[in-house]
């Protein structure tokens, strides 16, 4: 089963993942215009982009544990998934700022004043250098520092999860599930030292 999946993964080119991943972005926007997203398309689009961004970030986080614990190798798609998640975060941010809040002053006030928005912006700020360095030239140029830099993904995903938990009214189930999955995936990639000691 895992072998079959690995075979398919080897055959699937990374550009196909970009293509499939980007497709929902214009499609959802078009649905928003035509009314297919319901009577409040601004919020619907904002939420759809935000949730897709979070799902992609979680997916990116799952790649290393999937290889380590299941033997499933999806490493070659990790950059595509990371870049896609950045663009969904950006789209989410733009829909919020341009279509929802609609005024630069109010956007800035919200970022400063409302903790869940501050946190969301911080996550975006952490992802920005990662998106900029998601190319072979940067990997070569930065050498070992590239790996260090891209560990910013971890705090960024955690902030994204907290942003979702905090922005909803009351304690809702769905954002808490995301948060639990994020923390589990991070725990799975923690160094295995302890496990080794127990086994020995």
């Amino acid at each position: 089963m895992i072998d079959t999946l690995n075979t398919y993964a080897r055959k699937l080119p990374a550009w196909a993942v970009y293509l499939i991943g980007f497709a929902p972005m214009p499609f959802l926007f078009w649905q928003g215009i035509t009314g297919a997203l319901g009577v409040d398309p601004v919020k619907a689009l904002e939420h759809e982009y935000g949730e897709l961004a979070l799902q992609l970030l979680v997916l990116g986080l799952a790649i290393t544990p999937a290889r380590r614990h299941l033997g499933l190798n999806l490493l070659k798609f990790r950059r595509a998934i990371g870049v896609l998640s950045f663009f969904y975060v950006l789209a989410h941010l733009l829909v919020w700022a341009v279509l929802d809040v609609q005024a630069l002053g109010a956007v800035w006030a919200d970022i400063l004043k409302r903790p869940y928005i501050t946190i969301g912006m911080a996550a975006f700020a952490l992802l920005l250098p990662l998106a900029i360095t998601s190319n072979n030239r940067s990997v070569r140029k930065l050498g070992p520092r590239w790996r260090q830099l891209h560990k910013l993904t971890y705090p960024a995903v955690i902030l994204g999860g907290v942003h979702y938990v905090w922005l909803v009214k009351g304690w809702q189930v769905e954002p808490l599930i995301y948060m639990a999955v994020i923390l589990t995936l991070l725990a799975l990639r923690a160094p295995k030292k302890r496990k080794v000691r127990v086994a020995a």
Partner: protein
Amino acid sequence: MAGRWKNTLTENDVTPEANYLSRRSLLAGMAGVGLAGVAGLPTAARAQGLKANTYEEITTYNNFYEFGTGKDDPAKYAGSLTTSPWTVKIDGMVDNPGNYQFEDIMAKMTIEERLYRFRCVEAWSMVVPWNGFELADLLNMAGVQSRAKYVAFETLYRPDEMPGQKTRVLKWPYVEGLRLDEAMHPLTIMATGIYGKDLPNQNGAPLRLVVPWKYGFKSIKSVVRITLTDKEPPTSWNRANAREYGFYSNVNPEVDHPRWSQATERRIGGGLFTKRIDTLKFNGYEKEVAGLYQGMDLAKFF
């Protein structure tokens, strides 16, 4: 004693000449789509040229956490709610406490149409043509005693039919409250319909409170109990997060909510490129209700 609000204003008081035209075209338009009870539209609402949201908008975009936290959850899941028979228990400091059958209440009340702005604390809004009766009429029927200072309300608790009540997003049942003078104000109604039709379940069937100058969560749905008391009653969102939701929760663009700026709002129905509009103090009913809060610091009593 219905229709008190209508009587507090004459058309000349509130209607600048230019608005007569828009009001007429609005009425003509409404008559065209066959609305019931257009004659009952309150003068002020008519004069302001408010354009009602569509029935679809009003009945597919709801916050009713008893059926889930998504805006479309109530329309999806509220069909399972049994609203007949329905009893409203009126108790506390009243002369005639008891269990009132919904039909008996309806037989005694005068149903009017009220076209009100509806402003959610999440900074979106609608305009809703409610049908209903003044809460004051119901309270007078029960006979409010002089010691009573507040009115407490309670929503049905029935997890079998209200799946959201199996989660702990809020403490159930949902409760709300008003000061007695707010409850007796002629703008405050118990709504039993929309667009001349029975209130759909997702909007709080068979009867719900509507207090148009307060954020929407004050307008408690599917009410089963009304209690007159001398103490400020607990309210659900205040209990969940006192820093964010006060007892009064009057619509006020000058008092920001920690989560949302309340200066502007998005009127539902304008599509993806809707321009935000300015939020009005007391949701546009300042002239009618500001007197209730004279001398109060509205930033403190938010």
